């Protein structure tokens, strides 16, 4: 499989601040690559360098076979980019925005109509085509922005926090769109700070304070980086139970109506926890090993970083 995005030792500084610190990664063609990290970790800065919007301070990279430093204008013909901040014209109507980007991307005349109808359908805006964009709700705006960024059917798309501030149902719909395009062969590079969204990606890169601290498929990350076991405990009085376990130096957190305890060896932990809680007269309804979530992985990785 060939490579769509490849970067080596990519670095960008703003004065003394190192926003992106010697990052290496590659994304295969057709893959959904998730770029995961807290706000300010360097996700947007990396994406802007890949799209040819920002010059790297050092390092190199290529997108669709074009050099990000010397051939940024070639890259711009190959990609679709959706920025974190809503960046369509909100004083233009839905249709006017589509027509504008259609013209800018040079969508051939014979395709224009079809592409426009496709975007309107995808964003579910068929009935609101003459509405001013500023009157649309957040989730719909995001879908329209995505639609405008891919009017020209680019082989690679970069989405910077496409679902931030969007309600859960719209987020789900949005990911369905991305899946659909991925099936059709589009490479997607997407940043997010939602852990549940990270699970949808083929591969992930975890970035923290400018440094890439891990990359791999979600399952690989869990297997490779989560050396410790996670136990799920269902018990009465879980807050009291958590306090008791913490008092015995066991890392414990509440997940919904149960507790997650993280320890080196889960098999040995089960009888230990039963003893501790029994002594405190807290009844344990069930206890068992579970697969760690990405959130568990990420928290562990950040603590080690």
């Amino acid at each position, binding site marked *: 499989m060939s490579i769509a995005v490849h970067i080596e030792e990519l670095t960008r500084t703003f004065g003394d601040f190192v926003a992106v610190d010697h990052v290496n990664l590659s994304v295969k063609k057709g893959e959904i690559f998730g770029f995961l990290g807290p706000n300010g970790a360097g996700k947007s800065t990396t994406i*802007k360098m890949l799209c040819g*919007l920002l010059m790297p301070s050092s390092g190199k990279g290529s997108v669709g076979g074009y050099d990000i430093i010397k051939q940024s204008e070639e890259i711009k013909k190959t990609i679709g980019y959706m920025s974190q901040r809503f960046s369509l014209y909100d004083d*233009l109507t839905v249709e006017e925005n589509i027509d504008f980007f259609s013209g800018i991307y040079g969508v051939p005349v014979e395709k224009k109509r079809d592409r426009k109808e496709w975007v309107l359908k995808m964003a579910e805006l068929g009935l609101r085509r003459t509405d001013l964009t500023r009157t649309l709700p957040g989730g719909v705006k995001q879908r329209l922005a995505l639609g405008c960024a891919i009017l020209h059917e680019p082989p690679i798309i970069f989405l910077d926090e496409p679902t931030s501030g969007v309600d859960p149902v719209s987020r789900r719909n949005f990911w369905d769109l991305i899946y659909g395009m991925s099936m059709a062969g589009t490479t997607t590079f997407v940043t997010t700070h939602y852990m549940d969204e990270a699970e949808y990606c083929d591969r992930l890169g975890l970035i923290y304070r400018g440094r890439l601290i891990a990359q791999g498929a979600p399952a690989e990350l869990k297997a490779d980086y989560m050396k410790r076991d996670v136990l799920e405990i269902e018990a009465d009085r879980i807050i009291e139970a958590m306090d008791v376990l913490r008092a015995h130096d066991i890392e414990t957190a509440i997940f919904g109506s149960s507790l997650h305890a993280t320890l080196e060896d889960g098999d040995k932990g089960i009888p230990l926890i039963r003893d501790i809680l029994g002594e405190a007269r807290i009844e344990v309804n069930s206890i068992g090993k579970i697969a760690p979530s990405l959130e568990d992985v990420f928290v562990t990785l950040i603590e080690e970083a």
Partner: protein
Amino acid sequence: MKLVRIKAIAKKESIQIIRDPYSLAMAFLMPVMLLFIFGYAITLDVDNLPTVIYDRDKSSMSRDLVAQFRESHYFTIVAYADDQADIDKYIDAGKARVAISIPEDFSKNVATGSDAPIQVAVDGSDSNTATIALGYIAAISDQYSRRVGKSLAVPAIDPRVRIWYNPELKSRNFIVPGLIAVIMAIIAALLSSLTISREWERGTMEQLISTPVKPPELIIGKLSAYFVIGFIDVLMAALIGIYLFDVPLKGSPLLLMMFSSLFLFGGLGLGVFISASAKSQLLASQVSLITSYLPALLLSGFMFSIPNMPAPLQLITHIVPARYFVTMLKSVYLKGGTLKLLIFETAALAIYGVITFALANKRFRKRIE
């Protein structure tokens, strides 16, 4: 360069202008307002100067002299003073700008053919008006002397003056054409100076620079939308000038439009250059006012004659495009100037346009700095 991209940008820009009441007001209301303010308020003609008369002679001859002043439209007699203190009172209070005092022996002196001085006091706090008033007074007295002083020797030199191009010496006839330059300069630079900085501020530029659009496409697309506005403004200003202010247009209207387009091109280029350099709208609009409006008003020869300026300022006026445009406008309006006569100015404006466009193009980066 792709025409389809230029068209997309021009269309988008036009829609945005039409939907934005501020842009619309700036594009179409401001020029009309400026034209009215300048056209009515700025007149360099001296008319109806309030004048007080102190006639101590009270003869038919002195009354005849006073009548000469009264009948010219330059002076309006507001009062007749009874003594010298009265005159001071009128001048001090600003009720009169000119005081004419005729001595008791005036008619006797005129009759005997000896010198007949009259005393004139002029309020010099507005030196320009004072100088012009003195000229009128001298002319009226001179005319009077020739008529009544038969015994006076006729001067050897008798100038028969003919004033060319603006025979009535109406200042509005050269203010209105000059005004077109000032209005164009403001409109061109102010409107276009916001166009790029606005997109940076709103975040739409980030999307735009991620597309394959080329800087010249973006600039030409944006310019063409503003060019149409500027052209409508010239047309409006010319029509208001001709029909409302009675400023005759002697030359070809086509030539006027051609020269205006050339000037607009440079002015818009400057605006886009400023806009590409300053990433905030506020800064861009201030810089554009300083670099376009002020020079057009002060250094173009519109209000102040260039040959009267100190040498270093005169040199600077050569890089003020409005200077050439004002010359062209006055020539086309008042003298019926032709392209052949104005070829130097035409070339200067064309060069200026090419330079500002090239600068704007060079300055606009498809990168976040």
